[in-house]
């Protein structure tokens, strides 16, 4: 399978199953488009007819180009056959280990964000803070179920995790005290709205956290329209100086300024550029996921606008890079040489198997977006996974499990997409959230185009 597209003046051909990326001229682009459904004579005559006014396109030129295409095919770089379908379903029998936990240390929040999937941190349940005992048991569960995996990830999540900072500190100290003896390396992430950031938190996070995710939606009026305090006031003025101070002290350690865009700010690149103007360089901006009836829900009429926005962003990022002031956009990060292997590309995020969310009471769910849904309760950190049927359902979630993905060129980039989004859109974790697919495909096209442009600059 191949995917051909034109973007920013480039003709790009992606060979889906080898991962090869080719930049081609117009003639090669046209021939590659015909190649699988026409023989050589048909291609010759079609191209001679199309390029009749171009004297440089001769029969010999067309033949040479076809030869090059055939050579690439022989080398396994074009029209590569799918060899992974059987591999994917062997995954059902695999023994997975747990390697990441999303610790919901606080099911409560000091903001009242309009679009919050976690229902202001409560996940449609009671407000609660995780005790040290539950957190410790979660870590012991993680270690016990992690097999020989060395790197273990723990995300302090909520609600707002800093509303339970004492437990965050205590459990981090506990992990550090046992990691050597257990042969593990903990990587902590803190996802915070910033309201409770102070120097103590910043110093802790800069010492202990591999990554921090800081929630900011961009321009003040955009941010304040959704991310409000419990009294209904915008939170921008409170958090922005704290984030700037945090990032300044963080040095070269990882962080993301992460925003959500909605139907109300489909010109979201202006929010990303605003983040850059504030001095932030590591940026992420996600489309809101919510019921279609919500007033801020993205619509199909928004799609062309959003596509254009993604193109504007990609082109502007190239410009910034040339000027020596690059920014990183999470969804355009693409390492063509050292990216994920085919196993990772097929198996996806690992929710329900490698990755689980833990509630303040110690209940286990496949991921943070399933928390509070009794149908998806996996078990708890004391008794382990007691509902293997749910886990088996997630074991089967992969790039080949979804009928909608069969003919999709992007499936080895998204692994079939987010199970939670699929569930909310279709009622099944092996469905697809089509709207998200459209945006995802556009982002990958832009990300690959940027790699092509960067390769040209490097030459």
């Amino acid at each position, binding site marked *: 399978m191949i995917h051909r597209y034109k973007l920013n003046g480039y003709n790009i051909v992606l060979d889906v199953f080898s991962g090869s990326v080719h930049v081609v001229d117009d003639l090669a682009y046209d021939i590659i488009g015909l190649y699988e459904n026409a023989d050589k004579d048909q291609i010759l005559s079609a191209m001679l007819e199309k390029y009749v006014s171009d004297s440089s396109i001769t029969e010999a030129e067309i033949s040479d180009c076809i030869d090059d295409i055939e050579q690439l095919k022989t080398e396994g770089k074009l029209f590569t056959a799918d060899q992974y379908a059987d591999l994917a379903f062997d995954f059902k029998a695999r023994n997975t280990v747990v390697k990441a936990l*999303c610790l919901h240390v606080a099911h409560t929040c000091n903001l009242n964000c309009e679009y919050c999937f976690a229902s202001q941190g409560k996940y449609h349940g009671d407000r609660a803070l995780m005790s040290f005992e539950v957190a410790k048991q979660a870590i012991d569960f993680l270690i016990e179920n992690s097999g020989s995996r060395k790197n273990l990830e723990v995300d302090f999540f909520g609600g707002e995790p800093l509303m339970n900072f004492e437990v965050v500190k205590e459990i981090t100290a506990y992990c550090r005290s046992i990691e050597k003896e257990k042969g593990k390396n903990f990587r902590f992430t803190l996802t915070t709205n910033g309201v409770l950031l102070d120097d103590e938190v910043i110093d802790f996070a800069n010492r202990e956290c591999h990554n921090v995710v800081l929630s900011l939606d961009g321009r003040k009026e955009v941010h304040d329209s959704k991310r409000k305090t419990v009294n209904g006031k915008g939170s921008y003025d409170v958090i922005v100086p704290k984030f700037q101070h945090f990032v300044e002290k963080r040095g070269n350690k990882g962080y993301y300024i992460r925003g959500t865009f909605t139907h109300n700010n489909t010109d979201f690149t202006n929010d990303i550029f605003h983040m850059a103007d504030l001095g932030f360089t590591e940026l992420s901006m*996600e489309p809101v996921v919510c019921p279609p009836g919500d007033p801020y829900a993205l619509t199909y009429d928004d799609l062309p606008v959003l596509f254009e926005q993604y193109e504007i962003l990609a082109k502007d990022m190239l410009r910034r890079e040339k000027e020596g002031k690059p920014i990183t956009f999470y969804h355009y990060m693409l390492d*063509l040489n050292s990216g994920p292997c085919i196993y990772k590309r097929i198996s996806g995020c690992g929710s329900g198997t490698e990755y689980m969310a833990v509630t303040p009471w110690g209940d286990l769910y496949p991921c943070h977006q399933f928390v509070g849904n009794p149908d998806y309760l996996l078990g708890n950190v004391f008794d382990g996974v007691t509902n293997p049927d749910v886990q088996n359902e997630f074991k089967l979630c992969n790039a080949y499990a979804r009928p909608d993905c069969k003919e999709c060129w992007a499936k080895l980039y998204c692994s079939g997409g987010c199970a939670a989004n699929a569930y909310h859109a279709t009622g099944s974790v092996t469905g697809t959230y089509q709207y998200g697919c459209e945006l995802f495909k556009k982002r990958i096209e832009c990300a690959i185009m940027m790699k092509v442009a960067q390769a040209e600059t490097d030459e």
Partner: protein
Amino acid sequence: MKRIKTIETRDLQKSVKTGGCGECQTSCQSACKTSCGVANQQCEKCLGEK
């Protein structure tokens, strides 16, 4: 090749033999939390070899 330039990429077919160590980061854990994508991840093994 005159009309086709190939960008250097990891050969996914070869990674059937070399991949699968499982040390890579859990994809939703970093900066999204509301979407899934694996493409923007890096291979822990490849990075270790660099």
